[in-house]
C-alpha cells in the first residue's frame, strides 16, 4: 500500500476538500497520511519521511498558495526526499488568472503537477495511479 501525504498548506483552513480527498484516496486503497489544514511545508515533509511516501499532494484553496509553496522543493531535497512527487491543486492563486502562467510559476518552483480550480480529486485518480506506477 503506497503512502500519499495530503494536507492544506499555510494559513489555509478550508477543510472540506481535504476531508473528501482523504476519503477518496483511502477508498482507492492508498495509505493516506493527512496533515490536515494549517500545515507548514515542514509538516508535509516530516510526514512524508516518516511514512516513506511517494507523493505529497498539497491543497491550497485560499489564494496564498504562491507565497506558501515557495521553496518547498528545496526543503524536500534538503530532507533527502529527492524523488518525491509534488502535486498542488485547489484555488492556488488569488483571483482568476491565466492558468498557463500559473502552471509555469509552480512548475518553476519544482511542482510536478499543477491543477486549476475545478479539478477534483476524482479527476486525477488515473494520473496518480500512473505516476505511482501501479
Amino acid at each position, binding site marked *: 500500500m503506497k503512502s500519499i501525504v495530503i494536507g492544506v498548506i*499555510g*494559513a*489555509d*483552513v*478550508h*477543510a*472540506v476538500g481535504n*476531508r*473528501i480527498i482523504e*476519503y477518496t484516496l483511502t477508498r482507492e486503497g492508498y495509505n493516506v497520511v493527512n496533515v*490536515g*489544514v*494549517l500545515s507548514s511545508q515542514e509538516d508535509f515533509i516530516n510526514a512524508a519521511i516518516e511514512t516513506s511516501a511517494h507523493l505529497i499532494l498539497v491543497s491550497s484553496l*485560499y*489564494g*496564498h498558495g*504562491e*507565497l506558501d509553496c515557495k521553496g518547498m522543493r528545496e526543503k524536500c531535497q534538503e530532507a533527502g526526499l529527492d524523488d518525491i512527487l509534488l502535486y498542488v491543486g485547489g*484555488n492556488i*492563486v*488569488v*483571483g*482568476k*488568472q491565466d492558468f498557463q502562467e500559473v502552471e509555469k510559476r509552480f512548475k518553476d518552483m519544482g511542482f510536478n503537477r499543477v491543477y486549476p*480550480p*475545478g479539478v*477534483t480529486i476524482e479527476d486525477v485518480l488515473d494520473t496518480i495511479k500512473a505516476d505511482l506506477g501501479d
Partner: protein
Amino acid sequence: MQLKNKKWTLDEFMAVRKEVLKSWPTGNDPLLDLDESVERLRKLPAHKNFALKLIEAKLQNRTMLQPRAGVALVPDHIDLLQHLEAAGADFLPSTVDSYTRQNRYQEAEEGIRVSEMQGRSLLNGFPVVNHGVKNCMKVLDNVNVPLQARHGTPDGRLLAEIIHAAGWTSNEGGGISYNIPYAKSISLADSIYYWQYCDRLVGYYEDHGISINREPFGPLTGTIVPPSIAIAVGIIEALLAAEQGVKNITVGYGQCGNIVQDVASIHMLEELTNEYLTKKGYKDMFITTVFHQWMGGFPKDEAKASGLIAMASTVAQLAGATKMITKTPYESIGVPTKEINQIGIKNSKMVVSLLKDQRFPDSDKLHEEEEQIRKEVHCLLDKIYEVGNGDLAIGTVKAFELGIIDVPFAPSKQTMNLILPARDNEGCVRILDFGNLGFTEEIKAFHRKKLEERAKAEGRDITFQMTVDDIYAVSNGELIGRPKGFKTYENN
C-alpha cells in the same frame, strides 16, 4: 483568567487592553486613545454608522446588500470599495487577509511588500492591522456607506481596536463562529475570551453613546450545516455579546437550498434570538438578520453562478432578511475583480428591489419547518445551559467538548466533528450521524425518517457517500447529490 459569561469590569478590560495594543506596532498609535475615538465617532454622520443604518434598513422592505471584498494595498482597496458602492452596495466590507486572521502580521507585511513590488494583490484580503488606524480612516473617508471588518480571526482584539477607532462601526465574528470554521488548535475558551474583549470594547462605545453593530458569522463552515446548529451558535454569540454591552446585533444564516427551510430559518433566527435576549433580561436590543448567499462550493460556469446568486436573493427577500451577503460569478475560481464583484451586487439588487413588497406566504409546510427548528434550538440551548450550570460561556465550552453541539466539516479540533449532515428528498438539510449531539430521541427520529424517504427514493443506504454527493451537488448544478442514473419520476 476564568471564563464566565459576565460583563468585564472597566478595569479588567483596560488591563488587558494594554497588552493587546502592544501586540503589533500599529497598536501604538495615539489615535487609539479610547475617549478621543468616542468623540471622533460621535461626529460620524448617521449614514456612515452601521448600526444606525441597520435600524433605518429594517423599516424598509428591501433586503440590504453587502459584498465581500479586500485587497492588499490601500489605494486599490479604496478603488475596489468605490466600485462596489457605485454598483449599489448598501453596506461595505473590508475582508481581511488570512495571515492577519491568524495574527501572522509578519507574513502579512511580506504580502504587502510583494504586492507592491508586483503591482497585484498577493493577499486574499485587506491587512487591517498592518495598515493601522490612519489607513483605515482613509478608507472610510473615501466611501459614503458604513464599513465593517469581515475576517475569521479567533483573536481579533487588536483588529477590533483599530477598525472601531477608525470609525468602522461593525465587526463580524464571535468566539465560536470565528474559531470553529477558521482555526485548528485554538481553544474555545480562549477564543470566547478574546471575543468577550471585542464585545466589551463595543460595550464601551455603547456606554458612551456610540452605536456599533456586531455580527456573529452565521454560516460557520458553509457546508450543509443544519439550520438549528447555526442558529443556536448565533443565539449564543448574541447573548455573550449582549452581556458585554453590545446592543445592535445582526444574526446570520447561510443559505441551505430548500426554500421553505431557508425561509423558516431566517424567521426562527430572528424570533429565537429575540426570545432568548428577552428571557435573559437584555433590554434595548436591536436585532437584525443577514442571509448569506450559498456558502458552499459554487458552479464553475459564470452564468450558472449568476443563477444561484439571484435565486438566493429571491429567498432572502421573501424571507424578509435585513441584509444579504452577495457572492460573485467568480466564486468557484478565486477572489473576484471589482467588475465581477459589481455583477454580483447588481444581479442581487435587481431581485431584491423587484420583490421588496413581497413576502413568502404563511403555510402549514413553513410552520412545520419553523416548529422543527424551534424545537431543536430550544433543545440544544437547554442542554448547554444545563452543562454550564446556568453559565452560557462555560456551558458552550463544555457542550463542544462533549459533542452536545457539533459543527460539520470544521477544521477545528474544538468540535467533535462527529455529526454528518445530508439532504432529505426535498433538499432540506438533515442529520445522518448525530455523534453526541444534544437532541432528543424524537428529534433524531424525525431526521432519520426524512433521510429514509430519500434513501428509499434513491434505492441506496444512508451512508457518508450521500454527504459527499451532497457536497459536490451544487457545483454540479444540483441541490441533492443523487446517485448516477437516478430518475426522479420512477418514484412518483
